Structures are given as C-alpha cells and as structure tokens.
C-alpha cells in the first residue's frame, strides 16, 4: 500500500513537471497597445530619442565632417569609375545593400520645391542620370534611412531587433526635421549658395542623388560673386 502511494506521488510530481512549460519572463516582450492592435517587442528600455540626441554632435556630425567627400568630385568619380569609387568611398553594412556616401559642398540653389510634404532643395548640379538635378531633402517629411546607414558604428547586430534599429533612423529623421531643415525659410531663393553636409544612398538601378542633410545653411553672398 505504501509502495503504491509512493509510486502515485512520484507519478503526480512527474506529471506536474511534464505538464508545465517554463516561460522565462525577462520583460523584453511586453505587448503594447497601439491603436487597438497590440504588438510584441516594444521594448521600453531602449530610448531611441535619447540615443540619437546623445550621439548627434560628436558621433553623427563629427563623423560626417571627417568622412565627407566633396559632392562634385565624388559624382565625377562615380561617372568615370563607378566600381572603384563605390569601393573607396561608399559605405554599406550588408553585402548586398546599396552604397551610401557622405558628402559636403557649396552649390547654388536652382529651386526650392515644396509641392510635396517631402520638400526638396533642387541644386544647380546634375545627378548621375545627367537629366535631373541633385536634391537635398528639406522636409518636413524626411525619407529613407540614409544618415543611419552612413554611420558604420550603428550596426544591426548590436540591437535586439529590427524595431530598435528602425527607431534609430526614425529619430534621426525627426531630429533633422526639427533641428536642421527648419532653417530653410522664404528667404532661400534660387541663385543663393547652400553650404551642406549630408549623405545619399545610391539605390540599385537608380541614378538619383537625393541628399539627407545633417548641416544646412546659406553662404553669405550669392553665386554671382
């Protein structure tokens, strides 16, 4: 009888263990309500705003100042020897990604285009298609992830998931929208010279050069000087 009871006890204990699934709770998978649809992985512990504000001056603008190529010289290189120029000055974090280039320049403005919310400063210099012009994004909508992708120290492997990595680009673009491009106002006219520091990604099959600025100001005087 005692043996039976012991066997029963062991069975019960085993059954409890077998039927339990142990779930590690590490707080990284909190689900957050977002317009009635909840998503996992909104990890509150990573603050992209703080991260971007923390790196902006030294690591973003600092790196851009160190690495920038003069736009016209770079475009000439891309026209004459694209492969060598991409290898030498292009940045890409993944083997199959398009190249991103860090550039600077002082170039006359051809047009301030605000037809779309993704406004553009059209520069008086041709892009690689030789048919359209290079442009600089002036928002308020800033497209793509060019600035993040130009910074080699921001690696996907260092973040928990795509969402954190994505949030960095979003906050960089919002930083540019709020702090960099508002300097472009009604006083900016065609013919004036813009002094810029920024990055552009050369997408596969495209010859468009659209620069996302990290610094943007008017030079004193105009192009006729």
């Amino acid at each position, binding site marked *: 009888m005692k043996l039976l009871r012991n066997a029963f006890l062991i069975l019960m204990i085993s059954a409890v263990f077998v039927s339990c699934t142990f779930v590690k709770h590490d707080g990284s998978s909190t689900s957050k309500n977002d317009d009635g649809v909840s*998503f996992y992985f909104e990890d509150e512990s990573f603050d992209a705003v703080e991260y971007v504000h923390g790196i902006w001056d030294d690591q973003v603008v600092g790196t851009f100042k160190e690495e920038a190529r003069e736009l016209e010289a770079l475009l000439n290189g891309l026209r004459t020897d694209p492969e060598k120029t991409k290898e030498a000055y292009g940045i890409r974090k993944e083997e199959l990604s398009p190249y991103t280039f860090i550039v600077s320049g002082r170039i006359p403005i051809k047009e301030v285009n605000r037809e779309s919310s993704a406004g553009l400063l059209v520069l008086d210099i041709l892009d690689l298609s030789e048919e359209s012009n290079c442009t600089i994004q002036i928002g308020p909508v800033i497209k793509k*992830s060019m600035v993040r992708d130009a910074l080699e120290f921001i690696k996907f492997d260092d973040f928990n998931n*795509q969402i954190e990595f994505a949030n960095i680009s979003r906050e960089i673009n919002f930083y540019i929208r709020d702090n960099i491009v508002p300097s472009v106002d009604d006083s900016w006219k065609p013919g004036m010279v813009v002094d810029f520091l920024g990055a552009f990604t050369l997408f596969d099959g495209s010859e468009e050069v659209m620069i996302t600025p990290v610094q943007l100001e008017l030079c004193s005087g105009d192009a006729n000087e």
Partner: protein
Amino acid sequence: MGKKLVVFVLVALLSFALFAQGQKEAVKSNLIVIITPSHDNPFFKTEALVAEETAKSLGYETLVLSHDDDANKQDQHFDTAIASNAAAIICDNAGADATIGAVRKAKEAGVPSFLIDREINETGLAVSQIVSNNYQGALLGGEKFVELMGESGKYVELVGKESDTNAGIRSKGYHEIIDQYPGLEMVARQSANWSQTEAFEKMESILQANPDIKGVISGNDTMAMGAMAALNAAGMGDVIVVGFDGSNDVRDSILAGDIKATVLQTAAINAIMAVEQADKYIKTGSTGLPEKQLTDCILIDESNAAKLDNFMLK
C-alpha cells in the same frame, strides 16, 4: 519514503545526463532540417523549396517540415531534428519569443540553427538570423502609398500576426511615413493575421462603415489579395491597395491593374544565404559573418512587376 524518492530522482537525473552526453558525442548526420510556416502562403513555399534545392545541391539530405505558426508543433520539429542529429536547422520561426527555447535546446544538443525571414528576440543562440529589411521595405511601401494617394484621403490598414516582429515593424515603417501627411486619415486598423480569408471578411465589414475609403495598406500580400477581392466584390476596384512580399499572385494583380504596388522581400536569396552559411559553418565552425543580417527589399509596381517571378527579379 523520502529516501526512495531521492534515489528515484538521482537515478532519473543520472540517466538523463548520460542520455544527453550520448547525444552530444554522436556523429553528425548529413541532414538539414528545413522548418517554415504553412506552404499555403507561396512566400514560405518558395523559401522552403529554394532552401531544399540549395541544400541538395551542396550534397545534403533534407527534411522539410511546416509548423503552421504553432509554436508547439515547431517545438516537436526541433525535437525531431535533434533526435535525428541534424547537421543544421533552417527555420522561418513561429514566434519571436516562443522560438527562443527551441533554438536554445537545439544549440545545447549541438544542432546549429539558421533563421530566415523572422528574427527571434534574443541573440547568441542562432548562428545566423537573415531577415529582410522590413523597415526599409515598409518605408518604400509607405512612400509609394502616399504618392498613389496624392498625399490625402481616408485609408485602412491591415496588420499581420501580432506575435511576429515583422507585423510590428512593417506597420511602424508605414506609419513613420504616412503619419507625417496631415491629409491622410486612417479610418480603420485591424489585424487579419496574414490571412487572405480573414482579410476578405474584415475588409467587407470595414467597408460597411467606411464606404468612402481611398486606399488600403496591407502588412503582406495575402491580406492585400483578400482586401482587393472584397473591394472588387463591393464594386470598389479603384481603391488603392498596396501589399508586402512580392508574390506572383500580387504581381499578376498589379499587371491586371488591381493592386497598385508591393514590396519584394528577397525570400529566395535569404534561403540560399542561410543554407550556404550553414554549409560553411558545418565545414569550418564559423560563417565569418555577424549573426544578424539584413537584406534590402525592392519596390514592385507596374514598371517592374513583369520581371518578378517566385520572389526574384529577373
């Protein structure tokens, strides 16, 4: 009684330890186990087929299994791989959290995992996590959607399965662009769990309350197909629909003038990369690459849809 229990537990632990030890020292098989969601979705079917072909061409045997987005089923498949002493597991997983345990278990048993398409919420367990750059892709889709909408109008968003990071990341990418245009107004946002039939049903009921929508942005192609079918059934075929994946179904729909655009995930390329990295890891003990790798997505619209076939641009 106490003694007996202790002895029983000790014996159980010892036999388990011996068993686990035996597992680790066994000679590796030549088998690559490929585990994906249901092949009903052509995306996963292509991924599995391409992985299988690549593995066979490299001289491996293969076992192709589907977990149907059920983490328990996936767990059993991982157990099968471990029990068969597989050389590697290629997996498009059933949940970013639910999969952590299975990948860890495989790692501890000496079976390396190579994840494709969906990532898990932990690093250091899988050898590679090769995922499409869903964020970059969603920005492309969002930008195209805004352009097609002419920067204004009412729209609906269909979201994917919430336990999948890709559902969240795509939605975030879309909104990052769309929300910056004050003229665009979202009137409904619902999850249709990546499912065509669910998207059809949800869209039907959304349309009853919102007969004046101008666009639908969808987290994947199967839901976009469901939404388009519901719109056509309601005589609203001119509503702008944008999907995500780059399936042949949506390609045909774009060429027929129904769905307007999608975002191609390079499913086939990712599957090839995963098997090649597994092969290198099996042979040399290292892939020489970071664990987490992103592959860029490509916008598909009427200009290039004809070149799309089985998740590759010709």
